[in-house]
Structure formats: structure tokens, C-alpha cells
């Protein structure tokens, strides 16, 4: 990234503008979708999917992950795994248990 020529930076600026517009549209979509009459689970997955797409755009283009080195990607993969473990295991424990406490 630090060796980019001016032309390349200007090319990236075009991409940033496009991503910005996409993010704006997706935000509106997120709000619109929330007014649909769907079950909680469906709403949850829809909201998280749109948020993930938005997040991926920010990660990929604003944070340059799309052209980033393998070392960084692997650290993030490890983090994602730890994150999902933290998110799901306590919940599964709760549903598997005989009672709430």
C-alpha cells in the first residue's frame, strides 16, 4: 500500500466513493427491512446478513483487507473463531441446561 503510485490512489478513491454509496443504500435497506412482518429469527438473520455485508465493505475497502497480507488475515480468522465460541457456547449451554440457572 505504501508504494502505490498516484494513479493507483486515485483509482482507490473511486472505489471509496462507490463503497460509501453502497453503505448508505444498505443502511436504508436495514431500516426498511425492520418494518417487515417476519419472525424474530428471520429478522435476526436478515439484519445480521446486511450488517455483515456492510461490515465486509468497510473491512475490505476502507481497511484495505482485500489486499492485506496473510499474517493479518490469519489473526482475524483466529479472532473470528474465538468470537463465535464466546457468542455461541454460553447460549448453547443455556438451552441445553435443565433450567435457567
Amino acid at each position, binding site marked *: 500500500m505504501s508504494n502505490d503510485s498516484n494513479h493507483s490512489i486515485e483509482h482507490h478513491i473511486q472505489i471509496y466513493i462507490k463503497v460509501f454509496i453502497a453503505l448508505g443504500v444498505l443502511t436504508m435497506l436495514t431500516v426498511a427491512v425492520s418494518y417487515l412482518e417476519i419472525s424474530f429469527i428471520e429478522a435476526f438473520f436478515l439484519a445480521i446478513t446486511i450488517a455483515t455485508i456492510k461490515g465486509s465493505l468497510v473491512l475490505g475497502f476502507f481497511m484495505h483487507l482485500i489486499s492485506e497480507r496473510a499474517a493479518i488475515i490469519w489473526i482475524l480468522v483466529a479472532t473470528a473463531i*474465538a468470537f463465535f465460541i464466546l457468542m455461541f457456547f454460553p447460549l448453547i*449451554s443455556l438451552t441445553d441446561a*435443565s433450567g435457567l440457572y
Partner: protein
Amino acid sequence: MSDSHHHEEKFFQKYIWSVDHKVIGIQYGITSLLFLLFGFGLMAVMRYQIAYPESVIPYIGEWFFSESGGVMLPENYNTLGAMHGTIMIFLGVVPLAVGAFGNYLVPLQVGAPDMAFPKLNAASYWSYFVGGVIMMTSFFTPEGAARSGWTSYPPLSIFESGQTMWLLGMVFLITSSLLGSMNIIVTIVQLRAPGLTWFRLPFFVWSQLVTSFLLILAFPPLEAAAVLQLMDRIAGTSFFLPSGLVYAGSAVEAYGNGSPLLWQHLFWFLAHPEVYVLILPAIGIVGEVLANNTRKPLWGYKSLVYAISFLGFMSFIVWAHHMFLTGMGQTMSAFFQLTTMIISIPSVVVLTAFFISLWGGSIRFNTPMLFALSFLPMFGIGGLTGLPLGVAASDIFLHDTYYVIGHFHYVVAPGTLFALFAGIYYWFPKITGRQLHEGMGKLHFYPSFLAMNGVFMPMFIQGLAGLSRRMYDGGQQYAHASDVLHWNEFMTISAFILGLAQIPFILNIFITLSSKKSEDRNPWKSTTVEWSAPSPPLPHVNFESAVEVHHGPYEYSVPGKEEDYCPQTSP
């Protein structure tokens, strides 16, 4: 950027606000050793109480328990217990193992002039210092220090005195660890000297790398949980308070709908990897000392690296084995039992590799080696006694008994702490230019070894008999434990002998420091890079010239060579 080659630094800049990793490492070392001593003191008072319940505690009684006539009250005992655990783990062992040893040695062993972020390094020490001040100050507040265990379980911890300062202190300590581990990872990845490939790294560096990853990913959820518990205490929220709670005879005025289990999950998500944080640097140190004092390469170096990496990964999915008695369903119990059994495998790999490393070696029985050798069976006992705890069925009987206390102390006390002692004796000449006196070292080792076993071995007997932990009178009230109570006095006396055995060590340090410096920068004839620097290494640059590595970490007794060791930096 300051031009440190050309001007003399003032005292404060050089010794207090220094950004030199060596000074910071020593700061961590001194602070943590003092905390270890203090934590030991707390335990000594506890053990006196356990052996002689309801009796007047000598001296401590009149100074601190005068309101109850010199006799310890249950809440005093609980405070001692909670603070002993907290101080030993978060103010003692981790800062010593990671902050002191990690900070001092990692840059040297990778051939770097300093850590990747020296100012951040200083910040992480001072964050630790502030956290320590908060923890110690808590003793002097009207509420007193924490008394809900180092585990701080709600609902008790929401209502009991002293937790607020504890939580605040923890936030600073966690921040310190996060900054420190980030620094260590970047240093290892980025600042390795030319020629120092991944599999030429000393095993100690690998252990610090895995440890730092554990800290980075596992500590933040506890920081989040600490914030939540602070909110419960101060802002009246009920994250951890269930509905319908009654405390001290009256209904609790909180919204409810919270869950004490949530705390346990968030807490143990950290606290289990934390125990591997406690053991991994120790394993790293033992590896270094064994290779050096057998004059042989470590057997199974690659297996060791893969084993601790696998261990690090597995440590994230075993935590609920601390929660087997919380009403978990069978599926989750079985899952966590399985992962816990699997995680014992890498530890066995490590221990086996270390034992085989001794075979055919030219063993030198100096003080660091004695401590390192004793680590092997002590860690073995600690690890083996963990197995019945990891099996859910037997854990139902052993949970919260003295068996657990025996298990984890074996791993941390004659385990980690002995490895850390080995490290102090081993690297003292590099840090100060003088070797600690061997005779006094042996006077430190032998009684310590015997006394450690005297304190902790009977705990298994007591635990198996069903004696519960955290009881201020040592279990007098429970008939089922009456047969094993007689061990209490024996264990207390062993604890006091253990305390006395540290005196030669403390004296040794002071006497050696005032003796003449040696000209030999590599008295142990070791291969790793830090030994090619002067003793102590040069301020801010460490080495006299740029480091280039040409050999593996443990080229001892290479056939055909004249010397029985080949330094990594030799051409």
C-alpha cells in the same frame, strides 16, 4: 526521537520512566516479587487460622483483628482468600512470567535492540502499577478489600464489600496485559534478527508468543464482564441478578432477569486460558534450562512447538469444566469433558519431550537445573490430578474441595514458581553480570521442594474425604471431614518452613549484587542469542553490533566441534 547515544539520561528518565525493555523488565520483576511475598504472607495468616481456628493470631491479631479480640472473623478469612488468589495470579505470577521474563528476554533472544513499541511497554508497566496500587489501597478503605473469591461470583460479589475497588484494579491490570502482549507478538514477528527463522527461535520465545495470543483474545471478555459487574454494583443494573432475589432478609430492589451464569461464562472464558498463561512461560524457561544443562538439543523441538500451539487453541474451548455443577445439560457437559481430556495430551507431549531430553545428557546439577528438574514431576502431579476434575462425574464429588486447591497449587507453586526461580538463577548473570551463589541456591531449593510437597500433598487426601474449600475454620464444623483435619497443622508448619526457605534466596540476591562483576558474559556456555550481548546488555541497543543468526537454538555437543556448544550468532 531522543538521541540517547550522546547525552546521559537523568535518574528519573533512566530508572523510573525508562522505555528500555530491560529496565521495564526489572521494574516488573521487583514489583511482582514483592507482591508474591505479600501474597505469601496473606496465605501464612490463613494457614495459621486453618490449623488453629478460633485462636488469637500472633501479632496480626492485635494489629488487624483487635475488634474481635485478636481472633479472625469469617469475613477477614474471606478477604485473605480472595486477595491471596488475586495478588498471586494477577500481581505476582503473570507480571513476573510475562512482564518481567518476557519483556527482558524476548528482544534479546530475537536479537532486537528493544521491544517494537518501547513507550507502550512503559505504559503497560505503569498500568500494572496503578492496578496494584488500587488493589492494595482497597485494604485500607472502610469497605475493606474484596472478599468474594478471586472468582468474584455474583450475586454475592454484587452485595459484598470491597468488590468495586477490585473490579477497578482488574481493569487496569487487564489493560496492562493487553498492551504488553500486543508488544510481544509484534516484537517476535517483526524484529527477529536476520537468519532467525521461525524454527530457530528458542522454545522460550515460542511459549511467550502463544501466551501473548491467549492474553490478547481471552482477557477482553473479562474486562467487559468487569464493567458489567461494576454497573451492577454502582448503577443498579441487574446483569447478573436473577429475579426474586432476597438478600439479608429483604427483597432486592433491582429489575432482575439477569443471570449469575453469564458472569461465570465470561469469567472462565478468560480464566481458563489464564491458567495456560501461568504455565506456558514456565514451560519455556524449563526448556531453556534443560537444554543448557544437559548439553544436548531439546528432544522433539518441533513437537513441542506444535503441542503448545494446539494447547493454546484448545484452551479456548474447555472453560466450562469449571462449571460442571451449575446445572449444565448432558450434551454440554460431555463436550467440555471431551475437550478437557484432549487438552491434557499436549501437556503430556511437553513433559515426555522434556524427560526424553534428559536421556544421554551430560547433566549439570546447578541450582537452575535443580528447580527445572523438579518442575517435571511437580507439574506431572499437578496435571494428573487435574484429570478427575476434568471428568464431569468425578468432578461432582471433588468440585470446591481441597482436592482442587491441591491440583492447581501443584501446577502453579512447585510448578510455575519453581520454573520462575530456575529462570532467575539462570539469567541473573546476564541481567547483573554476577552469578548467584550456588550453595545458598541449594539451601533455597531443597527445603522449598520438601515444604511445597508438605503443604499441598495432604490437600488431595483432605479433598477426597470431602473437605470443602474456602471455610474459615478449616472444616471443623463438618463431621465427614473430621478424620483428615489433623493434616492442617502439618500443612501449616510446612508452609512456615517454606517461608523460611525463601530467606537464603533473598539474602543471596542482595549479597550477590554487592559482589564484583564477572568478565564472563556467558558463564553457562549457552547457545541462545541473549548470551552474546554484554552483561548487562547495552542500554537501548543491547548488542555491540548487528545480530546475525546462523544456527539453531540448541546446538550443543555438535560432533566434530571443539566446544560442546555453538552459539546461534557464531558464523
